[in-house]
């Protein structure tokens, strides 16, 4: 199970990547995509929508179930990964890269600091599968 070092993680299995300009990219983790199974449909939010931390912002449908993704930190959607509309499998194939979900302008740039670092998330995963 991949857990890249340069990302922050939420308990709901979303990752956050902070870019040079301060904006962040959000996606779901390798663990999450594996647990969901083959994703067949992605419902993205609209650009300009705002969400509080913990609010559902995106819906993923796999052959098993429909799952919500929860905002790891509050903010406004500035971009969505439109390639997922035609190729939802990107979330399975490359969850940390081409399978990203949204770009967010944070309400509070310091908020991701409270999320888990890679080592903590790996430990959290281990506790789930015990």
């Amino acid at each position, binding site marked *: 199970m991949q857990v890249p070092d340069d990302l922050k993680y939420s308990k709901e299995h979303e990752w956050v990547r902070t870019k040079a300009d301060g904006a962040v990219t959000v996606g779901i983790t390798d663990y999450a995509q*594996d647990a969901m199974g083959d994703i*067949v449909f992605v419902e993205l939010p609209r650009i300009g929508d705002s969400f509080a931390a913990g609010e559902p912002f995106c819906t993923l449908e796999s*052959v098993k*179930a429909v799952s919500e993704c929860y905002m790891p930190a509050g903010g406004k959607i500035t971009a969505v990964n439109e390639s997922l509309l035609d190729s939802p499998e990107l979330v399975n194939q490359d969850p940390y890269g081409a399978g990203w979900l949204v770009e967010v302008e944070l309400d509070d740039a310091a908020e991701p600091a409270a999320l888990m670092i890679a080592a903590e998330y790996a430990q959290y995963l281990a506790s789930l*599968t015990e």
Partner: protein
Amino acid sequence: MTKPLIFELGSPGRTAAGLPEPDVPVTKPEELLPFGMRRERQAELPEVSEVDLVRHYTRLSSLNYGVDTGFYPLGSCTMKYNPKVNEAAASLPGFTGLHPYQPEELSQGALKLMYRLERYLGEIAGMDRFTLQPAAGAHGELTGLLIIRAYHVQNGETQRNKVLVPDSAHGTNPATAAMCGYETVQVKSNSRGGVDLDDLWRLAGADTAAIMLTNPNTLGIFDENIKQITDIVHEAGGLAYCDGANTNAIMGKVRPGDMGFDVVHLNLHKTFATPHGGGGPGSGPVGVKDFLTPFLPRPLVECRVDEEAGKTYYLDHRGGQSIGRVKAFYGNFGVMVKAYAYIRMLGAAGLTEASEHAVLNANYLKEKLRETYVLPYDRTCMHEFVLSPLKSGERKVRTLDLAKRLMDYGYHPPTIYFPLIVEEALMIEPTETESKETLDGFAAALRQIAREALEQPETVTGAPHRTPVKRLDEVTAARKPVLRYQRQS
């Protein structure tokens, strides 16, 4: 071994019947029909002989798998055997020949049956009145929630805009709440599989319209805190709705009305002897406590006692606060007849025994499988139980594979990937009508498959091997659905 479709059989001009020469003048369609109503080209209808036609559909019918063919432990669905005598009752010409516009004096038998069935259901569920109109479980939920909304509106409490739903709930519960314009608030489960009381306490308040709950829940667990749960919601001013889909576990033992529920729906097509899974017709009557009776859909069947004429049954359409009709006429009457016959046939003692056997069978199977599969909520279950076959580190064989492999052993697979709170869930509901031999056979198959998963996993991941079509590509089917048959030319 894909077989041709009916459209791919036969050849042009072949036919199953010969028509006599017409004895009236032949007229061309274009002389009779206006241009806009004429086809541009001939319909591509199958052209087959009678024997080809009969063989085609007989073969298809033999591919059906139902409760009458074999064991069908589809958790949450109660696929129990439905005695044929109930079908015979529903087929009586006096019932099948009824017309919904027939006058009351000529429909006394049917009205009496509905009147009595309503009272039986009331006794079983601990409710004061029932509407028999809803045609399915989810239809019952919608009816129940509309009644709850009408009650709050009547009291001027329109700020109650949230419905509490546990995270183990049937998917129809939050869908129903949304359909009624409510916001759904998810209540967590505790480590024993019941409702987390602290979470419920925190969430219940002046904006709570209702809680929707199934007891026993979808983990097959009876929530022993049920009275506290309904008390907390009532204290907050909300009402308690019981999704009675799991009534098969509790008939004659405990009643939703006594657990503190104000509204309940029962699935006659699950618990009360109507075959289901084929898309209907179903029946989801909704029962309420007295204070909600004014809001029930109308008409209700009432009884008038007259010294000379005796008992007369009639339809009472009055009810200014009623939410209105939820179904044309009076509901699916044939299903009511089967439920009536089933209840009368078993009686109170028989219904209680049916529930006892449903629970005993589930626990027997659970104990037989616990050595081989992970049991995430390890406690005495009700009519069903949930396994999580995934053991840590071993992810090659998934629940989907186990389910597919079961088909090779001649069983209908259990429900999989539900409830959502159990990873890789396998949900098994044997029902009361299965014998010990059947349960032993099924358990042996699941243990054998567990062995295969370790020793020859590709046999399991490649399953099914013995069905007319092998593993279907569900992913491509979902991503790129082909929704319309295109004839190959």
